[in-house]
């Protein structure tokens, strides 16, 4: 007969060979810790987790799953073990829920080997916790008993393990999560986490395309009067949900701590943890202090919505981008109107025969010009006011940006460490308008990349300052290397692989930093044979992952399969490409991004002119970037032409080499 336990209740066990079944509805991590008489976990070898699933006497699953069966043979445990804690945790950094409050209440049951339930327990009342001790199996007078615990930890596994006295808790929690992420990455294959709501960050009531498909470029319409999604009220856009994990446990609020009642004999044991918080909403965004009346508020970095500082900064940057686009639109519209009104009035003066006599005509002309000047001055004043406000905001936001969003000259790159998580977005450069000299908006694109990049090495569209086409090609390759290095640096170790096709070896000098630091998958592929080989491998990979995903057999990818995102840099296209290779490249451009294979073309469109219009769809599908400032990007709201400036490493700076050295060192254990 099953005993349905409530929190704190215990039940004696008649068998020593048991299973613990867990079901949670969402993939979770299950593990177990052993502790001695003092309730202390003696070391990492006393923790069973997906990275080390087997201990003498017990076995847990190798990966996160919605259902688990943990096997126990209590007699086989070391004599010194007095307690086994069964713990559950939500994997972080994979885009799933980050708090148990967001998933169904986990259910655990202790069963015999024949499947008969001995005791069961539903862990209710969890909220912000991301790890929980579900059950304890413990020795009492020579026999084993089970107790329903249900102790949650908002700080996740690290806090849970620390609480059990494990000195290396932090590292172990990290490595458990890594093992889980590896397992998950393998089982779901690409594409990496993206929630449907993740795109909604900043598009509440605009009919224009959202921030994730903004740069339509001059060839695409700017969505000016595009059909609006119906009922797109800003009030039902409840903000981006779960795009990033609210990392870092919120500062403990003393008032939220439950009273730690000292356990006394006879009293029921209070299982509430003294450090436990009843609820942990994400920390409030920093808000600007109230402004003195009549003055704009002092800007603060991160003054936007979001679950994490990273997301707030992302939204703030997009907010600044939109504000600048709109304030410039207001200014241009006012000036245009002033011009056309003056023109009309002057026409009227000229066509009126009376004005030719005497000073009447001159007076009317002067009046029209004065009206024009007054309106333009007013518009300019409004623009200057807004620009000053945005510049002040940029001055506080820019230094606060994380590495992925920061310029190469930002000090944050000198303190670079290989990250544990994929950032939300990546900075590809800066954007500014003619009106906003001195104020640049970081151009952030969401990760993983949704379209390939095209670094235009052609001279078309550039002014005459750079006439040497070899110089442009070299700059384009430098730009590509800077972007690729940044991508390598912001992905966790081993989760981003770069391939290079350089058929004629013309990009060798630019590629030096990548080649020398050893972060590339292999040496740049040269010649037609190299091109064919790299393309064949990536094509096969895309096909394989697609098959696995469509067949619902994401687990059955071959062993040793590299689950990292792939980037292919192609220099000098179409040199070294035959028709078959061109077709493969187009296949990669179309199908690759969805399964984690991305393209970065460094090419002059003119070189491929022989293909006629056949390649136009390829060029259109790529996000065009330039190695020198060029105004070809359109914003999603008004459609201004923005001048793009690539994010380049300052001349003479060694920051790229230093960062790549760290990336290479971090990748070595992964052998990739």
């Amino acid at each position: 007969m099953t005993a349905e336990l409530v929190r704190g209740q215990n039940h004696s066990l008649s068998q020593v060979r048991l299973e613990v079944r867990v079901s949670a509805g969402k993939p979770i991590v299950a593990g177990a810790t052993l502790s001695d008489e003092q309730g202390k976990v003696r070391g990492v070898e006393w923790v069973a987790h997906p990275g080390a699933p087997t201990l003498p006497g017990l076995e847990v699953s190798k990966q996160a799953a919605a259902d688990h069966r943990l096997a126990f043979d209590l007699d086989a445990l070391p004599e010194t073990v007095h307690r086994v804690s069964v713990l559950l945790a939500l994997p972080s950094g994979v885009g799933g829920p980050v708090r148990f409050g967001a998933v169904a209440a986990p259910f655990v049951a202790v069963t015999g080997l024949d499947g008969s339930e001995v005791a069961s327990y539903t862990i209710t009342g969890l909220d912000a916790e991301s790890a929980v001790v579900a059950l304890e199996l413990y020795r009492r007078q020579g026999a084993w008993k089970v107790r329903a615990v249900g102790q949650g930890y908002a700080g996740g596994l690290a806090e849970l393990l620390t609480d059990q006295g494990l000195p290396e808790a932090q590292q172990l929690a990290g490595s458990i999560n890594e093992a889980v992420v590896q397992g998950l990455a393998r089982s779901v294959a690409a594409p990496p986490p993206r929630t449907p709501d993740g795109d909604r960050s900043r598009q509440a009531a605009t009919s224009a395309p959202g921030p994730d498909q903004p740069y339509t470029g001059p060839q695409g319409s700017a969505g000016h009067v595009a059909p609006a999604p119906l009922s797109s009220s800003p009030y039902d856009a409840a903000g981006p949900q779960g795009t990033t994990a609210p990392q870092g446990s919120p500062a403990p609020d003393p008032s939220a701590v439950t009273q730690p009642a000292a356990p006394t004999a006879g009293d029921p044991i209070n299982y509430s943890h003294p450090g436990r918080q009843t609820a942990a909403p994400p920390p409030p965004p920093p808000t600007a202090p109230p402004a003195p009346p009549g003055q704009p508020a002092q800007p603060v970095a991160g003054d936007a919505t979001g679950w994490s500082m990273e997301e707030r900064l992302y939204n703030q940057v997009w907010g600044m981008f939109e504000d600048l686009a709109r304030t410039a639109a207001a200014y241009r519209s006012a000036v245009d109107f002033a011009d056309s009104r003056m023109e009309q009035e002057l026409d009227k003066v000229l066509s009126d025969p009376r004005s030719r006599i005497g000073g009447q005509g001159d007076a009317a002309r002067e009046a029209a010009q004065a009206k024009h000047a007054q309106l333009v001055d007013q518009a300019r004043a409004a623009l200057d006011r807004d620009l000053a406000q945005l510049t002040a905001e940029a001055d506080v936001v820019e230094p606060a940006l994380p590495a992925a969003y920061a310029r190469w000259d930002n000090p944050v790159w000198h303190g670079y460490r290989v990250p544990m998580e994929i950032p939300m977005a990546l900075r590809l450069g800066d954007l500014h308008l003619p009106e906003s000299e001195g104020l640049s908006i970081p151009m952030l694109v969401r990760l993983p990349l949704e379209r390939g990049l095209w670094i235009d090495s052609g001279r078309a569209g550039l002014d005459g300052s750079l006439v040497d086409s070899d110089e442009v090609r070299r700059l384009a390759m430098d730009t590509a290397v800077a972007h690729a290095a940044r991508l390598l640096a912001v992905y966790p170790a081993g989760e981003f692989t770069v391939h290079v096709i350089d058929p004629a070896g013309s990009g060798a000098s630019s590629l030096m930093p990548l080649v020398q630091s050893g972060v590339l998958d292999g040496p740049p592929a040269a010649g037609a044979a190299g091109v064919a080989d790299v393309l064949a491998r990536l094509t096969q990979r895309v096909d394989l992952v697609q098959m696995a995903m469509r067949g619902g057999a994401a687990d059955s990818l071959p062993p040793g399969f590299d689950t990292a995102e792939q980037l292919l840099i192609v220099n000098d296209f179409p040199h070294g490409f035959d028709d078959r290779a061109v077709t493969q490249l187009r296949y990669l451009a179309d199908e690759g991004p969805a399964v984690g294979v991305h393209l970065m073309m460094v090419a002059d469109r003119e070189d491929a002119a022989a293909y006629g219009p056949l390649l136009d769809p390829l060029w259109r599908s790529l996000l065009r970037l330039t190695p020198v400032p060029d105004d070809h990007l359109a914003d999603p709201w008004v459609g201004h032409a923005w001048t793009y400036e690539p994010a380049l490493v300052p001349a003479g700076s060694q920051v790229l080499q230093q960062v790549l050295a760290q990336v290479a060192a971090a990748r070595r254990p992964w052998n990739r």
Partner: protein
Amino acid sequence: MTVNMTKGQAISLQKNDGGTLTAVRMGLGWQAAPRRGLFGSRTREIDLDASAVLFADKQPVDVVFFRHLVSDDGSVRHTGDNLVGGVGQGGDDEAILVDLQRIPVHIDQIVFTVNSFTGQTFQEVQNAFCRLVDETNGQELARYTLAGGGQYTAQIMAKVHRAGAGWQMTALGTPANGRTFQDLMPAILPHL
């Protein structure tokens, strides 16, 4: 305090304490009149649309409606199309937010219109109203009832225009016919 406005009436948007309004919301609400017949529960849905046209010296410069929800300068925002009405049960079904301080300097009038996109006349609409709310504190400044609109498919509701340093609102209440604001332009021009 709400002013129930009548046609042609003008109110100043100066606050009682002498300050000027900074943000106003033009709200539109309606319900379809219940239809009697074989299938009594099948009320025919009515889609009214609120639009705002921005004028500079009698020339239309920008428009905010369900296909262009934000004016280019960002000062006028539509909260989104409502196709059936009645959801608010007396609240706004569509709303247009106007940030008076951010309106470009050359824009001197904003005209608000209502159109029946599905073609029913205002006789078939129940409890239709248009109101102006101080967005900063939610206080209703003026309300204008559409009921008894007669055999018309559109109405030019009101205009907000510059008066001195501040803004003034005038109730227009002129009936017209048309599916979207474009059809109303000839009817709007005399009111500028």
